[in-house]
C-alpha cells in the first residue's frame, strides 16, 4: 500500500492562483520529483521535467450510475506514467478553473489499474480572497471546488481588508467546515500543509470536527481578534467571541450526525447504501467514524458521491468516547430525512 504513488489534486477557480501554488511546490528545495498533469499545456510556464498535458475528458461508467464519472485521460496518463515508476515521488494534477473535482477523485476508486498503483492524497483548492464571494454566487464550479476540498488556500489574503477576509472565510465555512483553511499571500505555505495529507486514507480518519483557523498551524498569526473557538465541542454554530459571522449557504451545506448510542450494522449499511444510491449526485463527500453494537473496533467510512469506502480501523481504546460521527457535504441535502434515517440505525 505504501508504495502507491500519492496524487494531489489542485483545483480553484480561474485566476485564483493554482499555477502559483504549483510552481511554488515545484521550486521548493524538497528534493522530491513530481510528475505534473496540467491542462493548459504549453500556455503557462511550469518549470518541471515531467509535465503531461491532459484533456479533462470525463466519461460515465457504464454501470447505471449517473454520477460515476471518471477522467479517462487520467486513466491513460497514470498508466503511462507508472512505467516510469521510481523516477518521481508523487503526482500533482492541476485541473482547469471550471473543472469538477469529483471525476478526478472517482478515477482513483473506479479504475482498478489506477487504484492499484496510485492513491489520492488530497484535493487542494485555491480560492481568491477578493473574488470568491462573487464566484460562489455565479459559478457553481467554484462552490463545488470549495465543498470538495480537503485543504483550502484563501489566497491573495493581503489584498482584502481583515473584516472582508473574515466574511469570506465564514462563507467557506458555511459550505465546508471540515477542510483545513489557510490564509495565504501568493500561495506561500509550508508544503506539508498541502502535500502528503492522506486525506482519503481510511487509517488517517482520526476525528471529524470542524476546522478553524488555528494560530498553531497558520503562519499568519493575526487571527486572535475575538473568535477563539472551543475545539472540543465541534459545533460550528458556537463561536465564543461572536466576531465570526455564520453563513448558511442556501444550496451547499454540510450535515453532521452524531450519536453516543451504538449503531446496528445490519441497519446502517443498507441505509447508507440506499442513501448514496438515491442522493449520490447531491452528496459530494462524506466521512464517518462509527461505533457498532458488539463490535470492539472503530469503523471508518468515506465517500465521494455514490462511491463508499469503509473498513475497520483499530479497536476503540480505553477511555475513548465511543461515539459515532458522520458528516455529509452536499447540495440541497434532505437534512431531516438523513437525520431520521441515521437515528433509525441506532441499535
Amino acid at each position, binding site marked *: 500500500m505504501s508504495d502507491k504513488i500519492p496524487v494531489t489534486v489542485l483545483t480553484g477557480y480561474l485566476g485564483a492562483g493554482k499555477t502559483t501554488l504549483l510552481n511554488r511546490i515545484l521550486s521548493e528545495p524538497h528534493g522530491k520529483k513530481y510528475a505534473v498533469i496540467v491542462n493548459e499545456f*504549453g500556455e503557462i510556464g511550469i518549470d518541471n521535467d515531467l509535465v*503531461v*498535458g491532459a*484533456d479533462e*475528458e470525463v*466519461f*460515465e*461508467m*457504464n*454501470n447505471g450510475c449517473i454520477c460515476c464519472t*471518471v477522467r*479517462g*485521460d487520467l*486513466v*491513460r*496518463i497514470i498508466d*503511462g506514467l507508472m*512505467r*516510469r515508476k521510481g523516477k518521481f515521488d508523487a503526482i500533482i494534477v492541476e485541473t482547469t478553473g471550471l473543472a469538477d473535482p469529483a471525476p478526478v477523485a472517482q478515477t482513483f476508486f473506479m*479504475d*482498478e*489499474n489506477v487504484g492499484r498503483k496510485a492513491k489520492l492524497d488530497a484535493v487542494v483548492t485555491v480560492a481568491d480572497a477578493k473574488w470568491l464571494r462573487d464566484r460562489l454566487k455565479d459559478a457553481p464550479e467554484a462552490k463545488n471546488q470549495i465543498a470538495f476540498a480537503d485543504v483550502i488556500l484563501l489566497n491573495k489574503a493581503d489584498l482584502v481588508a481583515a473584516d472582508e477576509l473574515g466574511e469570506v472565510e465564514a462563507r467557506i465555512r458555511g459550505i465546508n467546515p471540515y477542510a483545513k483553511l489557510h490564509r495565504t499571500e501568493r500561495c506561500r505555505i509550508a508544503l506539508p500543509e498541502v502535500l502528503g495529507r492522506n486525506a482519503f486514507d481510511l487509517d488517517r480518519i482520526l476525528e471529524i470536527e470542524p476546522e478553524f483557523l488555528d494560530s498553531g498551524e497558520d503562519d499568519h498569526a493575526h487571527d486572535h481578534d475575538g473568535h477563539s473557538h472551543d475545539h472540543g465541542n465541534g459545533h460550528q454554530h458556537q463561536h465564543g467571541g461572536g466576531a465570526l459571522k455564520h453563513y448558511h449557504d442556501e444550496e451547499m451545506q454540510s450535515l453532521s450526525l452524531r450519536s453516543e448510542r451504538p449503531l446496528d450494522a445490519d441497519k446502517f449499511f443498507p441505509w447508507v447504501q440506499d442513501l448514496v444510491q438515491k442522493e449520490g449526485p447531491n452528496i459530494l463527500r462524506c466521512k464517518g467514524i462509527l461505533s457498532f453494537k458488539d463490535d470492539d473496533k472503530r469503523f471508518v467510512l468515506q465517500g465521494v458521491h455514490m462511491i463508499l469506502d469503509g473498513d475497520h480501523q483499530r479497536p476503540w481504546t480505553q477511555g475513548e468516547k465511543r461515539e459515532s460521527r458522520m458528516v455529509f457535504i452536499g447540495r440541497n441535502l434532505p437534512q431531516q430525512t438523513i437525520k431520521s434515517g441515521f437515528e433509525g440505525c441506532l441499535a
Partner: protein
Amino acid sequence: MSELRAGIPSVVERTRPIKATASVVAAHFLGDTAVLVLGEESLLLVPRQGEARTVEAHPGAVILSSAAQRNRIITGGDDGKVIATGADGASATLATDGKRRWIDHVAAGPEGALAWSAGKQVFVRAGANERTLEVLSTVGGLAFAPKGLRLAVAHYNGATLWFPNARSEPAMLAWKGSHLAVRYSPDGRFVATSMQEPGLHAWRLSDRKDMRMSGYSARVRSLAFAADGKSLATSGANQLVVWPFQGKDGPMGKAPRLFAPAEFQIEVVACHPRQDIVAAGYADGLVLLVRLDDGAEILARKPAAAPITALAWNASGSALAFGAEDGEAGVVELG
C-alpha cells in the same frame, strides 16, 4: 499452481529463459526472432540462434504501444515518435507528433498500412498517403480490418469505422461507456471491444446489432480471435473465457466456454495462428496452453514471482514468447 495440474504434460524444459532489464509490456515475432517490448525505451531482440540484443528504439522515453508488421515492429512512445525496428536492430523514425503528444496506440494493417493515435487524433499512412481523423474523444484502441484499408477506432461511447480512402463519412458504432482494446474478427463480420467496466462489447457489422459479453471479475485487458475466427479468447477472469463467434449471431444468447480454471486471474491470452489452441498467462506467472476442442492443458511455464504481461506466437505456431512484469521472459520451442 495447484496439485491438480501436477501430472499435466509440460513443455517447460523447451524454454529458453530470458532476463530483461525492465518489465515486458508486449511480445511479437519477426520471423524466428522474438521481440520483447520493454516498458522503457527498448526492445529486446531474441534471435533463435545467437545472443539477445537490446535496441533503444525510444531513448529516454516510455513505449506505450506496439504492433508487428511482417519485417518490422512498430512502436509508439511518450516521446511523440512512431518508430519501426527490424530484426537486424535497425530503427527508423516513421513519424514525430508535431506537439510531441504521446503516441497512445499503433496498429499494423495489410500491405504495409500503418495507423497511430495521439489523444483524439488518428493517423493512417498507406503508401505515400497520410490521412487524419479526429474522433469524439481519446482513442482507446485501433485495429485494421483483415482486408482492405479499413480501421476500427475505439473511444468513449462506441467505436468508429473509418475507410481512409473512401469519401464516405466514418461510421459510428454507439455503445455507452469507455471502449479500450478493439479487434476485428478474422472474417470481418464483427468488431469487439474491451471496456472500462469488466466486460466486452461487440457489434455485428451487417446490421450493427449490439452484443454484450459480461460476467468478468476484472477488466478484460487482452482479447484475441482464434485463427479460424470461430472463437474469441479473453482475459479478465481466473479461467479462460472463450466466446463463440461461428454462428451468424455470434455470441448472442450463448454462454462462453470456460477452460483452465486457476487460483489467479488470466492477464494475457494469445491464439495459436493455425490450431485451436490458446496460450493463457496468469497473474501468478503461470502459462498454460489450452486446446479448445477438449480443454486439454499443457504447462508452458510454472508460476513464478510476477504476473505474465505479454504472450506471442510466431507465424507458424512453433514458438511461444512470454514476458512478465518483473522482466523474466522466455521463448518456448514447440517444434
